């Protein structure tokens, strides 16, 4: 079993029939995950997929690893407990924008704050799919849905801004429509120690088709996507001649060559910046004025809660010696009653 060399994609495919709508973006993501796992060299029995409730959260049933399809919004808390009891495990959390940012918002921000070492795949289709199409916290204001026939009045969260505001140590964005790149990002996420969030822009063909069209459209994507690369200038566009320049503390789009702009003027990406301000800055760039940043916004080392929790236990054992039950009971104010 644990011989990982021999593992292939189908080793990670369960016998359960996949039940998403034909054309759902989830298929591509499932495919990417099943393809990338064999490359990670993690023994299959050490991998666990934990999910909440939602279309996306059916995910674990389709994997042949350990898996837990829990309750709505609580996956982050359950994944936390799982990782804390056994830090050896590779814990993957799969969750939707409703599951993680609506009902699960509190667990989401606290898991990130504690930097629990899990890989969190956030399927963002900007809608509640499973319950047949109500707006979600990431739906743009004005969206007409079953529960907002006159348009939603909610200002929407940016998953990136919220995560970074919650002290995220790793945040990345990827697309269901670009599974190869998604795999690269997943490899980065697994390498990161701490909570690694991958926001995957996913298409719900039934209830919110084309939500990410602006970013993913074949024709325009070169001009609408900014691929972040650490240490590289933020260039994009069909001719790769457009770039992001810093204007005080706000970004502006410039074109190389035009009024004397050279690559030197272009902001260089630093995913390792100690302060998350740059990552936050990126999280504010969005359509139509800016390309959608794709890739790793931020990846900084930091202590993880799970590792520290066990470290603390070891430290105390070292200081006080392995606990002995008798000693524990027979402490405090004790006295003898003679026969």
């Amino acid at each position, binding site marked *: *079993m644990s011989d990982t060399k021999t593992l292939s994609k189908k080793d990670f495919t369960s016998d*359960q029939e996949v039940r998403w709508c034909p054309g759902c973006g989830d298929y591509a993501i499932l495919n990417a995950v099943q393809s990338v796992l064999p490359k990670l060299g993690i023994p299959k029995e*050490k991998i666990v997929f934990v999910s909440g409730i939602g279309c996306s959260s059916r995910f674990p049933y389709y994997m042949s690893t350990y898996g837990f399809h829990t309750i709505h919004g609580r996956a982050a*808390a359950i994944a936390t407990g799982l*990782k*804390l*009891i056994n830090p050896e495990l590779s814990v993957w959390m799969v969750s939707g924008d409703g599951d993680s940012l609506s009902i699960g918002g*509190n667990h989401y921000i606290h898991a990130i704050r504690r930097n629990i070492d899990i890989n969190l795949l956030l399927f963002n289709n900007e809608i509640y799919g499973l319950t047949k199409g109500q707006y979600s916290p990431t739906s743009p204001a004005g969206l007409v849905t079953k529960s907002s026939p006159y348009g939603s009045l909610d200002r929407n969260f940016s998953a990136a801004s919220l995560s970074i505001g919650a002290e995220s140590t790793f945040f990345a964005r990827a697309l269901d429509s670009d599974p190869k790149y998604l795999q690269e990002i997943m490899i980065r996420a697994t390498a990161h120690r701490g909570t690694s969030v991958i926001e995957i822009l996913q298409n719900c063909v039934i209830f919110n088709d084309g939500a990410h069209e602006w970013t993913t459209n074949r024709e325009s994507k070169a001009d609408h996507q900014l691929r972040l690369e650490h240490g590289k200038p933020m260039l994009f566009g069909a001719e790769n001649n457009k770039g992001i320049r810093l204007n005080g503390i706000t970004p502006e789009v410039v074109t190389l060559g035009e009024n004397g702009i050279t690559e030197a003027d272009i902001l260089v990406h630093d995913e390792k910046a100690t302060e998350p301000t740059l990552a936050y800055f990126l999280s504010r760039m969005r359509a139509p004025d800016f390309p959608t940043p794709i890739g790793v916004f931020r990846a900084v080392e930091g202590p993880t809660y799970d590792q520290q929790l066990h470290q603390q*236990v070891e430290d105390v054992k070292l200081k006080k010696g392995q606990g002995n039950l008798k000693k524990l009971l*027979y402490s405090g104010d004790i006295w003898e009653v003679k026969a």
Partner: protein
Amino acid sequence: MTTKSHVELDRVTIRFAGDSGDGMQLTGSQFTNTSAIVGNDISTFPDFPAEIRAPAGTLPGVSSFQVQIGNVDIHTPGDDPDILVAMNPAALKVNLPMVPRGGTIFVDTSSFTTRNLSKAGYDTNPLDDGSLVGYRVVEVDITKLTLNALAELDLDNKSKTRCKNFCALGMMYWMYGRPLEPTQEWVERKFARKPLLAQANKMALQAGYNYAYTTDLIPSSFEIKPAVIEPGTYRSISGNQALALGLIAGCKQVGLPLFLGTYPITPASDILHELSKHKEYGVLTFQAEDEIAAVCAAIGASYGGGLAVTSTSGPGIALKAEAMGLAVKTELPLIVIDVQRAGPSTGMPTKTEQSDLLQVMYGRNGESPICVISCSRPTDCFDVARQAVELAIRFMMPVVLLSDGYIANGTGPWKLPDPDSFESIPIRRPSDPSTYQPYQRDEESLARSWAIPGMPGFEHRIGGLEGQNETGNVSYDPQNHETMSLIREEKLMRVAEFLPEQKVVGPTEGDLLVISWGGTYGSVFSAVSECQREGKSVAHAHLTHLSPFPKNLGSLLGNYRKILVPELNLGQLAKILKFSFDAEIEQLNKIQGQPFKIREIKSAIDALLAQGEN
């Protein structure tokens, strides 16, 4: 010096009361421990104010500690104090109503200033407006006494005054012939780094002792002979502490790491505080962002192979309900501790009640049967916690452990067990990957076998959707849902096969059976024994196991003409007994945030028996 009379007593109840800052809890426990050491049986009831510290001298700021000591079985802190030690007017005002006329009241006269009197809402000074007529009032300027005794010490007055509680303690020690050594030693340990303070407290203690001895204020001293107590090593312990230690012991028995996922809440927080101290036993404590995260983290830890516990009080249980349902459905071992407090809603957080029984039984969506056990007093929390661990593991199910504020904060003398005598608890792990199914069950217990992440070949998925029998795969099949619902029910019933039969203290049949559960144990036991001594045909059954009930409970009920169920709620166990056994139940309900007095139970019993006679 004067010669003084010397009286023998079987038992006495003393209530120490003062401002939150006066250290009454400490004074009380010192008196308790010393009494235990000299061989008395003891029971205590700390009664402190709501969470926030009210301004000094005010009524809400009063903190009290009641202890009963005796040479006979003591099962409660005593109905009414024989002696009240009141360190300020507020303490007198709050506690006087509890002292029966004829009782003795010690007051620190120096604290009866006009300022303090008005803070306590006294227009006139009760010490001389005749409102204490009928009580034996002992007026001592304890503060002055203390300051004089410490005059020589190079300490500020504030610190000196702080010692006045030890001065009062000294008087009680003389009055009841207690040795000073245990407290003196404790002081030395406690103030090892502050020798001056240590000396001050010891001197104050001595001063009080001498004062009581020499003056005429206290006409007579009393002796309380040692109780006949089983020989052994004892420790005075609180309910929450004992629970925590029991969990650690239980985990040792199963050989699993203990994981506590919790969120602070009165009166359960001390379980977290206690467990977080014991990291050297491999205890993992996780203070979550809320109760939902707490129970969910525990469930995750359980799926991961740990011995998972979550602790809270009533409002927290309400929040954990949905996740508890997930544990029921996924059949994961989990211990849910509910230290009950007075509700509904936020209610009275520091006051005790037994009103969460129906909530833990039925407070989940769908048919969601769960195992419920309860502790009865501080000293049995240890064993009940170990039992919870055993049931959760043997039957692969969540187990609710009900305690309450009265048990949690109360203390009693605990005869320390020999940990080596604890049997190890087996875990059913699957052995053969080729035949493994997540919901394949043990014939006898119906427990599913427990494969955990990290075990090669046993990879499986579980979840909250209804699952197919055996495989656990998602299934909407109508028949399967009924099958699984009945299995979950039946599995709980199988626990009864494993439980000891319900015991009864007293006649195995007769006029009346009094049934107690949880914290009502002490007063019911005492009241029933009294009746038995009076030759009445009354028996006592204390239920530790509330879901399922012991196998023989139903038939037991048949053996008595009447059944009385006293509860600190509006009749929750009574309801369950009624529909479980079509039994006629007499209720005695009290819902005042206070434990039963023995007297209250006794008179209910007498009334019932009297009815019987007409």
